């Protein structure tokens, strides 16, 4: 690899990414609650993409195209976005424990979802997802204001995030204990742990552009992120417009995370651990780290979703349970077997 030129590496990387993503989505289309032959899956794709006109059971075709593929694509976007945001925030805030939810987004989304589902706020036109999205942005806005007031530096942002998260978590608990019945609370819990069952094509048309735009924006700042590794002052002395980069990246991360959380719920673990795994595999240079995080995150999330649907027959587990259950041991393996010197 050392002798390979940049275009060759780019081509190799691009091919690897394309193959991995296609493979993951194909697996997502082929495996589900019920068993549908792989041949039917391939014919469905041919029918839909190239109007091949194979005669198929319309229900099978509908399940594969409208349920499974839409779901796999959203899972991939969601995994990629969360991992990407994690990688960006960990560098920007210079904290290994930073994750997309450190900006209060998960807590805000819960409050928003609970306000809609239990208090019936804006009932009729506000859905659970819109409520979660609004809650996430409000919480992030509050955290941002708090951070601005608290002074500069990563520590201020992290502390503001902690304070904001606590506040919104308390608000959620307040609403739940005040007004929810046991089964309402259970429904909300299930939603908060992440669930891709309701995902359809309209969600894909929301998730794909947000994930792509977010990726392009972050990738464009890869060099600046490299500079941040030496601290904000060093970055500034290297000619990085620190404030602008901070604002742009944090806002982008908040927006991406809020979008994904509002589609699938707060899925933990991915945003925290995938960037570390990627760093151990490809190193710390953001030009490579960001795409690697996104790719691993995407593939990981699709795999976790498949497992969540199939590990207990006839029952769907929250995907957040799956990501941690599978991800934690996998991460432990990487930690133990990582190359000692890099």
């Amino acid at each position: 690899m050392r002798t390979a030129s940049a275009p060759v590496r780019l081509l190799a990387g691009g091919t690897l990414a394309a193959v991995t993503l296609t493979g993951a989505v194909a697996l997502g289309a082929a495996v589900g609650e019920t068993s549908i032959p792989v041949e039917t899956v391939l014919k469905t794709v041919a029918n839909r993409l190239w109007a091949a006109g194979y005669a198929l059971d319309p229900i099978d075709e509908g399940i594969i195209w409208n349920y499974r593929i839409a779901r796999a694509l959203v899972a991939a976007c969601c995994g990629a976005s969360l991992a990407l945001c994690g990688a960006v925030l960990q560098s920007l805030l210079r904290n290994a424990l930073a994750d997309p939810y450190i900006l209060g987004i998960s807590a805000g989304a819960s409050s928003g979802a609970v306000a809609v589902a239990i208090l019936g706020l804006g009932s009729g036109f506000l859905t659970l997802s819109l409520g979660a999205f609004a809650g996430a942005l409000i919480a992030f806005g509050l955290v941002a204001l708090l951070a601005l007031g608290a002074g500069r530096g990563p520590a201020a942002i992290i502390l503001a995030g902690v304070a904001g998260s606590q506040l919104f978590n308390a608000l959620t608990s307040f609403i739940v204990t005040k007004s929810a019945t046991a089964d309402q609370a259970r429904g909300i819990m299930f939603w908060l742990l992440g669930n891709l069952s309701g995902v359809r094509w309209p969600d894909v048309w929301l998730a794909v552009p947000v994930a792509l735009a977010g990726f392009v924006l972050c990738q464009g700042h890869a060099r600046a992120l490299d500079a941040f590794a030496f601290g904000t002052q060093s970055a500034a002395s290297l000619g990085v417009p620190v404030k602008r980069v901070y604002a742009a990246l944090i806002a982008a991360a908040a927006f991406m995370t809020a979008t994904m959380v509002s589609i699938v719920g707060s899925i933990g673990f991915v945003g925290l651990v995938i960037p570390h795994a990627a760093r151990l595999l490809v190193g710390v240079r953001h030009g490579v780290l960001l795409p690697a995080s996104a790719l691993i995150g995407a593939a990981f999330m699709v795999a976790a979703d498949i497992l969540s649907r199939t590990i207990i027959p006839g029952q769907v587990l929250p995907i957040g349970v799956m990501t941690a259950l599978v991800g934690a041991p996998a991460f432990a393996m990487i930690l133990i077997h990582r190359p000692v010197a890099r």
Partner: protein
Amino acid sequence: MYSRTLRFLLAAAATTLFAATPKAAFAQQTHYPLTLTNCGQEITFEQAPERVVSVGQSSTEILYLLGLADKVVGTALWLGPVLEEFEAVNAEIPRLADNAPSFESVLSAKPALVTTQFESQIGPKGVVATTAQFADLGIPVYTAPADCIGKDNSTGGDGLRTETFAMDLIYREIDDLARIFDVKERGEALIADLKAREAAAKEKIATLTGDISAVFWFSSAELQTDPYVAGRRGAPAYIMSTLGIRNVIDSAEEWPTIGWETIARADPTVIVAGEMDRRRYPADDLAVKLEFLRTDPVTSLMPAVREDRIVIMDAQAMNPTIRTIEGIEILAEGLAQVGLAK
């Protein structure tokens, strides 16, 4: 008070109940103190309770049907409108809460007995209060046998049935309450009436045309996500087995969440959609349910939807209640209407 009882007896009971059994069939009087074993606990009555708070619509309606409305000093946990014949009576009785009442609101009604339809409300870990909390104050709690016999509520949620529900459990509840209030004759009349209705509904579809299967859709936490459908041991299972219909769902949970993928491929002959006043989730609304079935890319292709084999049923009938009989009548009627039975 006396006149209300009289009016009530004339209006409701006399028309149907006493017509069903000859007056000569004298039931035994209750001898106090009366000790009953209810849901694993012994409860004792020195005399017929004068004041009762009822948590759960079915419990409340059983008391009304037994002509005990004048003893009811508070009600809670309503899923839909009260039985039509009790509208006037019910309007005069304080409704402590539409959903779960608070412990103190129950106490402030000074009940000599509390009846509960669900252990999740009042039971070992009840959200209103525990049975022990009421026992400390000398207030006995009567729990609907349908919620504790052959049912494990320790797993949370709607519980897990270890034995299939049968109307005998409701008849037992009627009989117990009739004994507690020393109105055994009315209890026997009510049970005889319900049994007669069940037999008549069964008669109606003496001949089913072929193998008929069904799925009972109660609601969904989010419109497009996996719906709550009837497991194989709850009230819908009883309705189906009474009429010789196969349930396409095989879970032992009371209301498991099963993916549309599984339901669509199971291809039920009939879809039974729940109708209710509750508006906790968007899919509680029957119109929203029907709209989903007809527009979702997969469910709209299901033969049951395309050929409009959708039966509308009050959600109360889908829970183990006195209205489960009504569920048998409605489904029998619905099958006859779509030409599946003679």
